[in-house]
């Protein structure tokens, strides 16, 4: 009996539990290496998307819609918008698609019956999502920037990194929330999570400032963490605002993270028994 009590005893120190979470980061990294061609596709798509949208600013100048100074401002505004969106969508995709992927491979049952807490499991997947999205976005940035003459001399890169770091927590929480959809709806959950992403894209001021939105829609901008991430990044890179200047944005993002991560895990923990009640964990595909 001792082996049974030993086994069900609470797992060791926090380091041991973090190690369990890191297993998910390693697994996703291995998958990423094996599916490098897909990564290449998404990188090309990200670069093309960034260029296509940012060239609109160049067109604005050539068509006389904006002066050269205004157009230069628009270039960097759109460039940062597309890059931040590439980052946010990569994090959200990574977390929600992995549920669909695991169901397709049939591994979801084995993953969910492993004795690892759901919080550690989801945080592990989120950490990979954030690291993966940072690498991909930096590559897009490095490839896209030489196409435009942008002045980044005044940027406070440290403040931008802090905004990304703090903002990533709330985005991970949002990703965990959207990851519930493919868990509950095997056939259309992924599409539903794309729909939610589209709403975040619409209301968060990715390609325009939220002030242009109708009043009723602007309400949603205030409850989207992406709005504050974009504000913070643009403030740091365009206006050269430092961490101290951005404290309000950072506090807001931290609050979003403090609500969305536990909230996402709690919702997932409610959805999982429902999926188990209705037999939704069986292999699909």
């Amino acid at each position, binding site marked *: 009996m001792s082996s049974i009590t030993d086994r069900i005893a609470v797992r060791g120190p926090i380091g041991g539990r973090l190690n369990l979470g890191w297993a998910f980061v390693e697994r996703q990294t291995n998958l990423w290496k094996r599916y490098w061609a897909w990564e290449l596709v998404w990188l090309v798509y990200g670069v093309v998307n960034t260029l296509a949208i940012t060239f609109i600013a160049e067109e604005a100048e050539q068509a006389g819609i904006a002066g050269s100074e205004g157009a230069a401002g628009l270039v960097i505004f759109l460039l940062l918008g597309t890059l931040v969106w590439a980052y946010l969508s990569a994090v959200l995709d990574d977390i929600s698609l992995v549920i669909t992927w695991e169901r397709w491979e049939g*591994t979801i049952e084995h993953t969910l019956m492993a004795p690892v807490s759901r919080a550690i499991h989801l945080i592990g997947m989120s950490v990979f999502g954030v690291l993966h999205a940072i690498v991909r976005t930096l590559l897009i940035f490095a490839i896209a920037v030489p196409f435009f003459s942008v002045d980044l001399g005044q940027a406070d890169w440290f403040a931008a990194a802090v905004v990304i770091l703090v903002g990533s927590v709330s985005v991970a929480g949002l990703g965990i929330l959207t990851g519930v959809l493919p868990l509950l709806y095997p056939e259309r959950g992924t599409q539903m999570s794309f729909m939610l992403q589209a709403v975040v894209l619409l209301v968060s001021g990715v390609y325009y400032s939220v002030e242009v939105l109708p009043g009723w829609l602007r309400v949603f901008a205030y409850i989207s963490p992406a709005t504050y991430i974009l504000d913070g990044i643009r403030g740091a890179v365009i206006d050269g605002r430092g961490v101290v200047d951005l404290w309000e944005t950072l506090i807001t993002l931290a609050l979003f993270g403090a609500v969305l991560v536990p909230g996402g895990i709690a919702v997932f923990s409610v959805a999982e028994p429902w999926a188990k009640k209705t037999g939704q964990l069986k292999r699909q595909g």
Partner: protein
Amino acid sequence: MNSLAAKATDVNKYFGGGFDYRRLIPVGGSRNGKKGPVQVLHGVSFEIHRGEIFGLIGANGSGKSTLVRIMSTLLLPDSGDVRIFGLDVVQESSQVRTLINRVSADPSFFRNMSALENLLFFGRVYGLSPGKIRQRLPGILERLGFEFERASEPMSHLSRGQQQKIAVARSFLTSPILMLLDEPTTGLDPRSKRDVQAFIRQVRQEHDSTILLTTHDMEEAELLCDRISFIAGGRIVAEGTPLELRQRVANGRPLNEINMETVFMELTGKRLEEDEERVEVMAGV
């Protein structure tokens, strides 16, 4: 010391039907053509003693895998009680998961990851260090007749039999106290089947393991199991040692003339193949 490894009491499970508010109206029933829920387990009760190999025999669709999923904490029963070493699989699922592992007929893996990468991941989420996993694996794979050198190949390059051996290795790697083997040899060639069966026997002899084996292979059941339950249409219809089951249907005939196929037919009123054919017709195969 608890001599019962598992106990199921009056377990019922329904699938499908969804929620239809019109079912709440007593007259007329469902009016939108939806079928009601289908009961797949009908008051199933059984006990598995510690250290034994307990066979659950039934055709496809008889409820074997549903029961295994419930015991694996992957499916919630609609009523009844299932306990693993005294722990409730619903209320104490996280503790139960530390004691069990499962092999299913479908060896679900990340197909583009190597066997070793898959095993490292699934071992790590059970708290094993990469070093421990690498230390244990060669021995397990060798006993299963799998060349360790091939463990670095992607799963998709391996044959069905080799993949199933990796699935068996994944489960035994974590040294479960209760192993749930859900048709582990279905679809395997005779050599692979013998390898897996020999491995199961060895593990039972050498370790403090209890095994639930579901199969529709009568020879396998007789070869491996200490006690057997027959399940048909979601109901347990007979239970006993292979000898007791033979004696039950002997009616004066010599026991060595009665095989388990005959026992199944006489106790359930049908041949295994009949049930399988019926399931295949229902599934449109």
